[in-house]
């Protein structure tokens, strides 16, 4: 059984504290947390003693992260390490496989490895070479426009996330010009046209390959309604909208 407190260590290219970008570290730790919670689902709010996964500190002079997990997550720590050692991820829940695959993708891109807690004294090292099948039936893709707030643009490799209305985080990929444009709209609400990927079980998007950014005109929601009112002129004066909609949606002649 894994201990509640352990270390995760990045090794390889630029794996020293002064060379690491916070967005890259955040992505790795966040995905690791997602994997643990997918294996042992718990309500974070139900843990009175602190977060389900806490970052206790970074060991001075190295890329070692001291992590503390809630007791109920300890089996998940072992499960992830065992899967990495055995190179067998098939038995993990799909969200956990997706989270680990995301880590693998990030590690591959950075030329780094992630040393996990050992399992039965065997060293567990996640590398960019690992192949994890998530299965086509568990996600689907399609063209759409997603709307949300731009977050975490930039960093070492130019990344962006879109935070949707309910807090869902969607990773945004795209060419350099798109990422640059998102950077200039950091924290703004935008629309992103592109090919999105959704979880087939939850219908929640987790990624979009962007090919166009829609920027809203300046002004708040009051201004948006003012523009609408100005363009409509007298068209809707004295119209009861409820009646209008009812008539449109009724099948009566």
């Amino acid at each position: 059984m894994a201990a509640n407190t352990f270390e995760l260590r990045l090794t390889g290219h630029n794996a020293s504290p002064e060379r690491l970008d916070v967005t890259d570290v955040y992505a790795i730790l966040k995905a690791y947390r997602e994997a643990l919670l997918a294996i042992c689902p718990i309500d974070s709010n139900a843990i009175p003693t602190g977060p389900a996964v806490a970052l206790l500190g970074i060991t001075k002079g190295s890329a070692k992260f001291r992590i503390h997990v809630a007791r109920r997550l300890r089996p998940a720590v072992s499960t992830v390490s065992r899967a990495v050692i055995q190179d067998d991820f098939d038995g993990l829940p799909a969200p956990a496989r997706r989270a680990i695959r995301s880590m693998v993708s990030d590690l591959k891109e950075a030329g780094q490895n992630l040393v996990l807690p050992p399992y039965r004294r065997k060293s567990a090292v996640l590398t960019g070479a690992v192949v994890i099948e998530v299965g086509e039936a568990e996600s689907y893709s399609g063209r759409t426009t997603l709307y949300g707030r731009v977050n975490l643009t930039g960093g070492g490799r130019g990344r962006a996330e879109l935070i949707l209305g309910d807090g869902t985080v969607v990773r945004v990929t795209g060419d350099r010009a798109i990422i640059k444009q998102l950077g200039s709209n950091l924290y703004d609400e935008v629309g992103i046209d592109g090919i999105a990927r959704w979880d087939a079980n939850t219908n929640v998007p987790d990624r979009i390959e962007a090919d166009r950014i829609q920027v809203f005109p300046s002004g708040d929601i009051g201004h948006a309604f003012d523009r609408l009112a100005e363009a409509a002129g007298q068209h809707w004066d004295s119209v009861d909208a409820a009646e209008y909609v009812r008539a449109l949606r009724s099948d009566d002649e």
Partner: protein
Amino acid sequence: MIALDTGILIYGLQSRRASGKTSGDAGLDARIARASALIDELQSAGKRCMIPAPAAWEYVLDFPMEEQPKIWTSLAGFAIPPFDHAAARIAAKLARKYFDSVVASQKGHGKRDVKRQGARSFLRVDMQIVAIAIAHRAEKLYTVDVDDFTALSAGDIPVVGLPQEHQKTLFSD
């Protein structure tokens, strides 16, 4: 982001034109005043709104064709999410749930009634609007047709009507 149905959009813009004027219809004036209260709350909370594409279509189709480009442009301050792959999947699931509940409440009538329900225009448009709001992760869906939308949404998104004029319920502490 908050999703708005067609009726709320129209009451909202009427409230920006009203500025103290009355329509002569006390009920309509009250609904417009309540829409004004809603916009005030959204404004103070810094919220942006989405108009699901079928609702935007319902709004624009009433204008003469030559005016429609200008009307579409005036919608630029709103997100207009499409009925996409995710929305289609969600709509199919919600429609099935809704049909099953209709069958359960109308024992003996069975599939014929389901088909009749499915053919109704209100169901097709309402279902698309609800599904788009869910697929695009809206916090809430505002509509003048709370009962129908609540039944269709199966609890997957909060469905709410216009607030009372002086009621601060949306984002107030």
